[in-house]
């Protein structure tokens, strides 16, 4: 299959479920591992500090952060809020299936969060626009990258 055919097979609009509403546009960074905001990230810099992470050392701040789901302590909720206040938070979150720690953190920090998304449809570095402002929810891939 040529790359142009491959491109055509990938939808540029991906449906999702809105958990925390809002609109965001930016570059996506994807991790394949479940994430805890308590311990996995330095809230002052937005850099991932979990050594076993596949995005160890990278920054999630100012980006759309996509990962399968959350894990760990509910205190992580407040870490996301702290990151939002010190402007190191991601601008939006995409999960495969979210869970309450991430969901509540995103809601109180007013960070758009959508889930029910197949992360294999996305590539790190792509520019996305997340529409989660109304009852309907979708992700738009603005410039598509292919392997």
């Amino acid at each position, binding site marked *: 299959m040529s790359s142009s055919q491959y491109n055509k097979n990938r939808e540029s609009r991906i449906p999702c*479920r809105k*958990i*925390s*509403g809002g609109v965001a546009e930016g570059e996506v960074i994807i991790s394949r591992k479940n994430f805890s905001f308590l311990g996995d990230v330095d809230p002052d810099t937005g850099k991932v500090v979990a050594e076993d992470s596949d995005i160890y050392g990278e920054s999630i701040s100012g980006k759309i952060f996509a990962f399968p789901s959350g894990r760990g302590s*509910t*205190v992580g*909720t*407040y*870490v996301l*809020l*702290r990151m939002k*206040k010190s402007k190191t938070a991601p601008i939006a979150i995409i999960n495969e*299936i*979210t*869970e*309450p*720690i991430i*969901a*509540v953190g995103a*809601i*109180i920090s007013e960070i758009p969060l959508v889930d029910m998304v197949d992360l294999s449809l996305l590539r790190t570095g792509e520019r996305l626009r997340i529409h989660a402002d109304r009852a309907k929810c979708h992700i738009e891939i603005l410039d598509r990258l292919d392997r």
Partner: protein
Amino acid sequence: MYLTKDEERLLHADNPTIRKCMEILVAIGEIFNADRLINVKSVQISGISYQNIGDAGLEWIEGLNAKFVVKAMINPAGMDIRRWREMDIDKDFYRKQMRIINALISMGAESTLTCTPYYIEKPSFGDHLAWAESNAVVYANSLIGARTNRESGISALASGIIGKTPNYGLHVDENREPTVIVNVKEKIRSELLASILGLVVGERVANEVPYFRFPNTLSEWQLKVLGATLSAKGNTALFHVEGQTPEWSKFDVRSLEKIEIDGLKHEFDQELSKTCEPDLIALGCPHLSEWELEKLYELTRDKRAKKEFWVFTSRETMKKRGDLINALESRGIKVFGDTCMVVSPATEKFDCIMINSGKAFVYLPKLRGVNAKIAGMEDCVREGFNR
């Protein structure tokens, strides 16, 4: 999730606090496929220690603008709010902790500051609750037959402001069914054995609803300690005990997988024989009941503490049983309210803390960075008084 017209209105309320709280409940309802919201009788709010939630949490709570519409109780804080100086808590910590507590009180929370809300206002069988604090959750579900999921501090707070919780998980009959049988072969004659049992099977029954069979009847004290330890070690939110707990006979357990438990002390020998020299003996995780305080009173009769001996209970119990508290204090025991050895940074200055709680055994090394030695209450008294 279905919302009534009134609930829809709250979701679009002008007051951002109410809107956010409703968004939180709807999000959790969506995540767990709840069909609707249901009324709760009370909420128990955890995560109120300044050390845990920091300035971000403090400012968020202070920024809230709404009143609780149901009974709202709060977890222990980082210090005894009267005797904090004796605990070597610094003034800045004290001030910030008080701001968190006062913000919650101004919203209508009661200043309970205890992890044992079931001693303050005992729920009834079948009541729906939104409780955070894992030992209270497992106690309410298992010993009382009330219904609550393991809430987080913020979801419990949101439920307190809206008065509702999403109908899923342990609010629903079918999810209260046992999923595994634990056959315990030896008699559980002490709270220490109940703790050890929790430590030994906790991880194995994480995310299960265990159904215990014991050769003897367990006391309220032993069941409380077992539940607290199970929830700290695994994620247990509900267990049943054959012949004892209120819902045990509702279910057919014949086809369930069985775990056999024998030789508990032996299985736990290495941990029990840990040789650290206790420089603090601390009881009260979860907060001691009146009955436990009376037992301690009996055990320490005509004695005086020779080591630091701290006891944690609720302010309410302290007020109710001033006689008992004064007698314990006169024997050299420090009785603190509003906090405990696990949430207060005050215990960090010790090397080895002797406790009779499986829950504290799990959390003290993790959260306070100290060694923990576990024994029964009698041995704790022996260590603190007889040397």
